[in-house]
């Protein structure tokens, strides 16, 4: 590896920049407070979720220990419904498949999806001559900023309204006030046009179900509905870990994920089980009535199958991305998504090391975790992040990827008998 020390000093600068950012801190404080209130309310209102999350944990384990079988089942079920399923072992394969489906000179509208970021989707699509619009409001803001999302569910958690007004004013070519309602209205009008002009709509998935071949999408804004319904082609990029055995398990995930994310009930749950079709004129099947005529699922492995083979590490694949761990973390509410690569926060450490980023990128993140274990207390899947991070640090130390002073401390323990 080229200069591991440099990575640690660069990362330190980024983290310290975030520590000094007063606006960020107060935005995050507000976000944490409202998240806790909402989550507690949602969990109190629906106490059966506690039972459901335990069942869901078992289902996830079942899938992860029978992954190949589940992939095959999903492929067969989705295929029966007319969904084209593609298997991408690597990022390169994923991009190749995407290029074949998309081509160039297309207008693409996207729903929020971290899995798509694993493929470097936006840059890749632009490089291949397409135009891409993020349609989740937070992601749209982040895209205009040219930055990176700072939270799983609230990507623009760090951006004040004044900055949003400035960005939108530039786009509108007129002055827009820093009023959330007016800014949202502008985004609605601006993106509405794109939804209808788009050639392709893209999404991720919260779950896909092996018995019915269905794609589950949870949202509040309604942008995913538009993006997956208005354009003639829908492409979902889905990590293998998103498979659940049955449609009923999918609905269970909807409840667990949304309540733990602090929502009573999400405004929209879309279950897509095939392209739009009709046989209403003389029983002749015609594809693409009001919805897309083509639905593609790109199943992304990118290291997941290997992780699934390890009984300890595979826990990280059961993450349902509710984001609770981040709000309850000691470090995240200070530094937000600066502590991350594609995946962020404590759970982002194994995801970065093993799936999206690699050991060298993950190492500074790993030594930023206090290993306090509070995340697990609030994780619906009880993911043992601290033990996993400890184990990953072992591999990082072997590779020489550890902070200089930490290395010195360890050497002192070995030579002097104490760490100082």
């Amino acid at each position, binding site marked *: 590896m080229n200069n591991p020390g440099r990575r640690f000093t660069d990362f330190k600068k980024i983290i310290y920049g975030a520590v000094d950012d007063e606006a960020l801190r107060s935005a995050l404080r507000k976000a944490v407070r409202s998240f806790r209130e909402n989550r507690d309310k949602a969990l109190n209102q629906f106490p059966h979720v506690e039972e459901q999350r335990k069942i869901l944990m078992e289902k996830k384990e079942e899938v992860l220990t029978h992954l190949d079988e589940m992939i095959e089942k999903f492929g067969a079920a989705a295929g029966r419904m007319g969904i084209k399923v593609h298997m991408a072992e690597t990022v390169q394969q994923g991009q190749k498949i995407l290029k074949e489906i998309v081509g160039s000179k297309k207008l693409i509208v996207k729903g929020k999806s971290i899995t798509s970021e694993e493929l470097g989707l936006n840059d890749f699509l632009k490089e291949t001559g397409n135009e891409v619009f993020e349609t989740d409001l937070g992601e749209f803001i982040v895209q205009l900023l040219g930055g990176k999302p700072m939270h799983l569910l609230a990507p623009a958690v760090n951006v004040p309204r004044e900055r949003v007004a400035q960005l939108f004013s530039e786009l509108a070519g007129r002055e827009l006030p820093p009023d959330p309602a007016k800014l949202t209205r502008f985004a609605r009008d601006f993106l509405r046009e794109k939804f209808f002009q788009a050639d392709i709509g893209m999404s991720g998935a919260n779950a896909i179900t092996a018995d019915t071949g269905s794609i589950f999408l949870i949202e509040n804004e309604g942008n995913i509905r538009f993006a997956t319904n208005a354009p003639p082609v829908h492409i979902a990029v889905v990590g293998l870990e998103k498979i659940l055995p049955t449609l009923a398990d999918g609905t269970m995930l909807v409840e667990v994920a949304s309540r733990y994310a602090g929502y009573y009930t999400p405004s929209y749950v879309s279950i897509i089980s095939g392209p739009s079709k009709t046989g209403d004129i003389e029983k002749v099947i015609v594809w693409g009535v009001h919805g897309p005529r083509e639905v593609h699922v790109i199943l992304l492995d990118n290291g997941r199958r290997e992780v699934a083979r390890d009984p300890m590490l595979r826990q990280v694949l059961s993450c349902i991305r509710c984001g609770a761990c981040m709000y309850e973390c000691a470090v995240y509410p200070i530094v937000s998504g600066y502590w991350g690569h594609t995946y962020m926060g404590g759970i982002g450490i194994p995801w970065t090391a093993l799936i999206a980023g690699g050991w060298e990128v993950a190492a500074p993140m790993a030594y930023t975790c*206090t290993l306090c274990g509070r995340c697990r207390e609030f994780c619906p899947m009880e993911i043992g992040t601290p033990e996993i991070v400890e184990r990953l640090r072992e591999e990082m130390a072997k590779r020489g990827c550890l902070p200089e002073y930490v290395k010195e401390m360890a050497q002192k323990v070995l030579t002097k008998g*104490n760490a100082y």
Partner: protein
Amino acid sequence: MIGLYFGCTVLLFEGLRNTLEAFFRKAGVTFEPVGIDQCCGIPLLLAGFQKEAGENGKRLVEDISHKGISTLVTSCPHCHRAFSREFPHRFGLSTPFKTLHFTQFAADLIQSGRIRLSKPVDLKLTYHDPCYLGRMGEKIYREPREVLASIPGLKMEEMEHNRDQATCCGGGGLVRAYLPILSSAVAQEKVQCEARPTGVTGVVSSCPFCYFNLKEGAEEVDKGEMEVYDLAELLVRSMEEPRDE
């Protein structure tokens, strides 16, 4: 025989070490100091050197066993976790002695009437659960609270998040070694958002890492109005000098 394992972080700070020694003197308990020049190895483990931590642990356990220690008292929660968890469970070492954290040992002495707490400590404080004593360790939540409750004059308030849900001080996981300013920021956040709303004037902890990290953080908040205390220090303040036998 009782062995007292100070831990290298306690040894690093004279004040903490003196407090511990004063406690044993006032309690009239003799002890054998152990591991003065040997770290428990948790820093090795957290840095990523598992094998070395195991070898270190093996030497340490042998050394302590040879000394005929029956009860080992650790003042640092990290050492406590090393002896009670990592050595027997991770490294399969047999530890032929009982390991107690200082707060457990003190709670026993108070309960059995071996020590008397008579001098009032007129403060209103909140207790910070160290992660390695609580959720990441043996979940020692009752004893430190019992000890604090038996100090006359001392009033305790719970923070919104405590015990299993207690928030971290920011000093753990060797983060303080890599990103000390981040550690301090986490401590400041804890002081502001958890401790301050309880209306107390200070935070008390039973871990040298939490103690120093919180202390450093608290100095940056509200002109340092929030004090940070070491649990043993409050105890020693309240204890009488031993009566002559």
